[in-house]
Structures are given as structure tokens and as C-alpha cells.
């Protein structure tokens, strides 16, 4: 009976995820190009925030996840320009792998820290990366550099379809990662992460490893960040050091807080909200859009402290 419920629970999640993907993919055919681009960026950036949410479930918030975005983005752009790798899927996955490899040596160190110390250490790492990218003329310095049009499964993408194809690829990967994240959050490891958030001492006295949980979550967040970075760079056609700047990281944290740690779908909804607010506010009141964003965040923290995901995850303690 219980097994059936679990299977139905995951089956329902997968069905909903696939339905959302098909719906968005079909809707993309009728959307104006600016909207498919906006949703592509929302999904790519949402992946970065998904990694942050994974860490938030363990009680820490990184302020330097822009570094993962930059690492994934630069890796994809360099692979395209220097190695001749043009396949969009390979570039995206490669971005995730490079960010993971770059983050792995720091993960055991960071797993020892909590609260503001964890946040500041991740911020420091991202700002060091930013400084290096600014100074490295081989990587375009402060201007960054461009990359051309990727291919997909050996097919050259036509002018009319390149935006849509990247949009479908991005939401497809976002759907897969969202479903995997849901499975992980509901797994035994996922539950131990939630326990770490509340009481590390008891986790250790029950035989669990707090540091292992935090290390794994940091590495998974790096993969999500790198994947998102590569996807974003392919749609933008450009990469630059500001990806690793602290304000960029702040936007990902904003999305994660807006979403809350309970719902995976909420991360992508929150990311879309940010992109919409950013786009329209930049157009209609360009110098004060951060003000609107800040007020919105205050509203969410005051009335939905567990994020917008808590609206439909009410009653769930996990």
C-alpha cells in the first residue's frame, strides 16, 4: 500500500513534469521570440537556483553561486571556440562537469562552515574567480567573448529555429534536473539533509555524516550551476566576468528565497518571475527596478516565509 503510494507520488511528479515540458515546448511554437528567450534564461538561471535550494535544505545559503554559472559558461564557450565542440547538449553537460570538477576540491572545506561563514567563503571564491576572469586577456578580460551558433545532434540550427531549439533543450534539461532533484529530496540522503538543517548533533549520533551531506549538496549545486551557465551562454552567445560578480549570485539567492525549499517547481516559477520583473521594470522604470524587486522580496519574507512553494506544499513538513 505504502509502496504504491510512493510509486504513485513519483509517477505523478514525472507525469506533471513531462506534461509541463510538452506544454511549454508546444507553447513555444506560438510565442514571440522575446518570450522564448526570457523563458530560456529563466530556466537556465533556475537551474543555478535549484542548486542553492538543495543547499538551503541543509541550512546553508551560498552567496557565490555566480561562480558556477561563470565556470559552466566559460567552459562551454571555450569548448566551442577552442576545441570545436559545437553540440549544444554536450556543451551544456560539459559546463556542468567542469563546474563540478572545479567545486569538488573546495567542497570538503566548505562543508565545515555554516551560516555567514559559509556564505562569505562562497562569495570570496566567486569574487576571486571574477577577478581572475577580469585579468585574463586570453579569456577576453572584462569584455568576455562571443561564441557562435551551436548544433544539436549533428544538425545545424537554422536562423528561424535556433532560439526555439535552445529553448526546448533548456526546458528539457531543466525538467530532467527538476525531476531528479525531487527524487533526491525525497530520498534517504535528501531526508538526512533536512535533518542536518535542524540538528547536526543528532544526525551524527544517529550514525549520519553531516559533512558528507554538505559536501554532496555543494557538488550537486555546482553541477546545476555549471549546467545553467552553459545553457545561458549558448542563448546569449556571449560570456563575461560579471557572471561571477556578487550581484549575479545575489539574484540566484533572491530566486531561491522566493521559491522556498519545499517545491522544485517553485524554483523555476520564481526564476521566471524575476526575469519578467527584470525585463518589464528595465523597460518602464530602468533605475528603480531593484527597488520593486526588493519590495517584492520583503513581501514574500513577511507573508510567505517558506517561499511561494509553500502555497501548494502546505501541510508538507518536507
Amino acid at each position, binding site marked *: 500500500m*505504502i*509502496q504504491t503510494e*510512493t510509486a504513485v507520488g*513519483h509517477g505523478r511528479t514525472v507525469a506533471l513534469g513531462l506534461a509541463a515540458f510538452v506544454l511549454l515546448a508546444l507553447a513555444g511554437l506560438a510565442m514571440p521570440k522575446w518570450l522564448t528567450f526570457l523563458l530560456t534564461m529563466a530556466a537556465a538561471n533556475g537551474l543555478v537556483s535549484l542548486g542553492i535550494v538543495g543547499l538551503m535544505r541543509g541550512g546553508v545559503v551560498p552567496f557565490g553561486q555566480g561562480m558556477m554559472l561563470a565556470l559552466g559558461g566559460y567552459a562551454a564557450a571555450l569548448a566551442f571556440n577552442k576545441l570545436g565542440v559545437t553540440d549544444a547538449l554536450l556543451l551544456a553537460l560539459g559546463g556542468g562537469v567542469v563546474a563540478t570538477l572545479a567545486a569538488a576540491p573546495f567542497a570538503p572545506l566548505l562543508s565545515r562552515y555554516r551560516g555567514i561563514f559559509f556564505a562569505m567563503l562562497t562569495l570570496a571564491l566567486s569574487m576571486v574567480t571574477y577577478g581572475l576572469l577580469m585579468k585574463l586577456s586570453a579569456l577576453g578580460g572584462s569584455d568576455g567573448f562571443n561564441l557562435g551558433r551551436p548544433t544539436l545532434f549533428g544538425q545545424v540550427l537554422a536562423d528561424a529555429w535556433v532560439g526555439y531549439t535552445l529553448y526546448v533543450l533548456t526546458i528539457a534539461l531543466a525538467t530532467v534536473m527538476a525531476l531528479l532533484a525531487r*527524487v*533526491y529530496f*525525497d*530520498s*534517504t*540522503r*535528501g*531526508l*538526512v539533509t*533536512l*535533518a542536518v538543517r*535542524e*540538528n547536526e*548533533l*543528532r*544526525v*551524527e*549520533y*544517529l*550514525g*549520519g*555524516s553531516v559533512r558528507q551531506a554538505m559536501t554532496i549538496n555543494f557538488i550537486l549545486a555546482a553541477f546545476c550551476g555549471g549546467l545553467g551557465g552553459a545553457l545561458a551562454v549558448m542563448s546569449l552567445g556571449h560570456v563575461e566576468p560579471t557572471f561571477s560578480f556578487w550581484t549575479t549570485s545575489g539574484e540566484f539567492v533572491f530566486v531561491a528565497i522566493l521559491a522556498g525549499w519545499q517545491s522544485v517547481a517553485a524554483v523555476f516559477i520564481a526564476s521566471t518571475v524575476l526575469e519578467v520583473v527584470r525585463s518589464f521594470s528595465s523597460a518602464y522604470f530602468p533605475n528603480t527596478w531593484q527597488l520593486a524587486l526588493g519590495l517584492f522580496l520583503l513581501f514574500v519574507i513577511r507573508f510567505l516565509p517558506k517561499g511561494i512553494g509553500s502555497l501548494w506544499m502546505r501541510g508538507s*513538513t*518536507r
Partner: protein
Amino acid sequence: MSLLLQAQGLGKRFGAVVAASDINISVHTGERVSLIGSNGAGKTTFVNMITGYMKPDQGRITLDGLDITPLAPRAITRLGVARSFQIPQLYGDLTVQDNMLVANACHDQKLSFWQPARRPEAIARAETLLERFGLAEHRERRVAELPGGVRKLLDIAMALTASPKLLLLDEPTSGVSADEKFPMMDTIMAALGQEAGTTVLFVEHDMDIVERHASRVIAFYAGRVIADDQPAIALATDDVRRYVTGELLQE
């Protein structure tokens, strides 16, 4: 009964305060040992040293002949030593059943990225223990909403999830009303009685409970063991009557 736990020459100081001095204790499988003593006598320090929370300045501790003195709490837990806490260490935002599932997941050596925490065998194990401790009716309640006595029971039920060889209970009835103490301790001991081969060390201040549930008493005073015998004998010694129960002081 085989030798399970052996503490040899344990010493621990906190500055000028001697928390443990030349502690030599052997515990055999299946024993119900009560640790008694006034506040600051060294009972909790002893428990903390066994579970790896504190390292002794001198001496060694063996479990089944294996030296566990340098090991971290997690490693000691995995060798079969579990504990409950004087102040229950629970997950207040989670439900009672989820707390049990956390305990089960932490104990799982092969933690999985895919295997659901709410899988049938984990829930069945959780339900068995919840039933045994009389907690089944609370399974869907958030722990933060529970009364103190129920939290105490849940704290112990979680420790028991791993079917430990040695269970240490730090003041299992503290903070519980006098009326509830006996039924609660009866529930705990009945539940433990169904765990084959679990040896229990419990810190307790109520001598009626000690006499009723312990097969052996170890009394501490100023970091030293002043009595180690069957309850009737240990509680009748002058040192215990003077420094623990205070009977001689009253006389």
C-alpha cells in the same frame, strides 16, 4: 554474559574540576545498569566519553574488545552504541514518523540518492517502534507541538532504530511529572525488553525507578565511582547514602 563495554582508568578534567578520575567499569551483555549521583558527579561525562562526544584525558574504552576511545560519535554509533539525551534532540519541524525515518536513514550505511525515505520497510520499522513506545497516535504530528514526555519517548525510540548493542539513556524521566515517571519508565523498559540483546545504561535521579528497573547500580561522586553493585547493596552503602541519596546527611 559476555563483556560488552570496558572503561579502564578513565580520567577527565575541566580546568580545576575533576569530572572523571580513574573510572574502571565493565558492562556485560543484557545488563540494565543505572548511573546515579548528584549533579556534577560525572555521570554525563562518562556517557559523553563512551559516545565519543568527549575524549578522556587518560584511559581507554573498548566495545566488544575494540578500542573506541579515539573514534568520533558517528563511528561509535555505527559500532552499535546509541544514546538519548537529557534534553531530547529531535527535528521539531518534521513529523514524528519523519523523525523515525531520519533515524532510519542515518543508520542506513548505503544512503541512496534514489531510494525513497518513505519506503515500506523503513515505515514498517518506524511504526513498530512507535507502537512499542505508544507513539503511533502522534505519527502525523509535528514534533514541535508535542508535550515533553512524548518527546522523551520519541528521542529513545529514535536511538533504538539501529537496534544498538548498547543504549545509553541520559535521564529518561527528567522533566516529567512524578505521576508520569513510572508509567513512562515502564513503557521504555517494556519496549527495550523486546529488543533482543540490548544492554542499557541509564542515568537516573529517582531511586525508586533505579530499584525497580536496574540490575546493577554504579554511583558517582566527584568524578569517582563510589559504589558498583546490585541496587539493594549499592544503595545501602554509606557513601551512596551520604553523597547521592543524602540519607546520612539528614540523619
